């Protein structure tokens, strides 16, 4: 828990809340709802069950797409690292995918899949997280300490043990940093795709609140999105980081 949001941040948060409170007092609640209004809206969506339902839908899509991107990204990185012809052929393609704005992918997805509930968000998350995972793992492989592999081979270590006990542990830090960066992309893309082209999930709820001019709900959903992101980034991934780098210098 030692890394779970540092104390000065709480201080900053209080200041933000104070400014929000002051600002909301002088403005129309359509422009800036008060903390109380937003809390009320949050309570409403929680009690009605929409909160949990939408959250789970978005989470499910994220996990499916993000999980596939992780698997495909790792396999691609291993293949491109191993075979130079594949590297020369496909490496620029990854850069092209990375350089294409998400809006283009969503537009294409709508054309290709229609306003299918799951496919567009899943496609977008996948295509956005894949290069991030790939680039990090690929770089981890390129920077791998080959001296250790040579040592292991010199001592007649079988191939599978070299993979399991040298490749894997040396890649774990790169993998965790890839997971961390890609998750932020995945979570945002998922909401973005749902906002544009889906009839369920948090993104869809945001778009509904937006068209109904329910700014308090917009704030309520945003708070949920941010809280979950903070939980993953500062708690789950932080724990994972501590675990994989337990043998490293602090």
């Amino acid at each position: 828990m030692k890394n779970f949001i540092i104390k000065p941040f709480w201080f900053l948060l209080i200041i933000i809340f104070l400014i929000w409170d002051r600002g909301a007092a002088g403005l129309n609640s359509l422009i800036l709802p008060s903390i109380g209004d937003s809390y009320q809206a949050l309570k409403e969506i929680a009690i009605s069950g929409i909160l949990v339902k939408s959250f789970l839908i978005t989470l499910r899509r994220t996990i499916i797409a993000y999980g596939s991107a992780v698997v495909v990204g790792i396999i691609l990185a291993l293949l491109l690292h191993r075979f130079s012809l594949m590297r020369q052929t496909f490496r620029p393609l990854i850069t092209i995918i990375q350089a294409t704005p998400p809006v283009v992918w969503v537009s294409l997805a709508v054309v290709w899949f229609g306003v299918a509930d799951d496919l567009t968000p899943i496609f977008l998350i996948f295509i956005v997280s894949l290069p991030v995972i790939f680039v990090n793992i690929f770089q981890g492989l390129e920077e791998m300490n080959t001296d250790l592999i040579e040592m292991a081979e010199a001592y007649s270590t079988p191939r599978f043990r070299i993979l399991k006990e040298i490749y894997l542990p040396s890649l774990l830090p790169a993998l965790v940093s890839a997971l961390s960066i890609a998750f932020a992309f995945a979570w945002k893309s998922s909401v973005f795709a749902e906002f544009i082209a889906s009839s369920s999930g948090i993104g869809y709820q945001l778009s509904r609140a937006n068209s109904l001019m329910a700014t308090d709900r917009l704030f309520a959903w945003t708070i949920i999105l941010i809280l979950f992101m903070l939980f993953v980034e500062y708690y789950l991934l932080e724990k994972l980081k501590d675990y994989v780098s337990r043998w490293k210098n602090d």
Partner: protein
Amino acid sequence: MTEKNKILELKSINKSYQKLRVLKDFNLEVNQGEICCLLGPSGSGKTTIFRIASGLESADSGRVEKNNDPRFAYVFQNPRLLPWKTAVENLIFVQKNYGLENETKLRDLLFNLSGLEDFKDAYPHELSGGMQQRLELIRAFAVKPDLVFLDEPFKSLDMKTKVNLRKLISLIQAESGITIFLITHDPEEALLLADRIYILAAEAEGIKKEIKIEKPREKRKIADPQLYQQLENIMDIFTDLVSDLNYAVEDIRSLF
């Protein structure tokens, strides 16, 4: 001395890196149970010979002959320890390859001899450079090898650690009969440890001289007249390699 058994022999080895010829028709033999030392300045091809002899690299031509498929162990110039494994796990990692992972007593002995008994569960980054080098050394002995390759194992170590490691190698070698192939650029080290010293001069020139040292290792002192003479001889060989700078005397005087 009884009839010598060769454990390893290099025959007419050639090796080039791009245009740089490092070994030309190179021959060398290592006898069973000896400490054989390869002494030479940087760039004389020592590490290339080490890598070819130990099978880490292949030669362009020539043969490496081994007797009875000996088990090799390696001590690299810079310790190659797995950072995510503790000291004892680093030993077990290589022992497993030879079914020796249950040799707890051997491990304990090696840890005690090297003074690392309190650091079995430490990760490499928690050890000093000298301690890492000691761990690297005992890992080699932990696989019960027939031949240990030592590539400048004392480079960049302090005096105390050097003496300590020398003693350790000397003791284990004397009592176990394990063959040791040592590479160094330090004539003193070679004279104190080796039974036989091959002196390399420059790249692709082959062995300049072979020196045998009969005096028992434990009685050797560098101040001993006999050893001192040999040290002088070695220094002479190296001095001959250095080009004469006298031609510049006038320029130095006038320009400073």
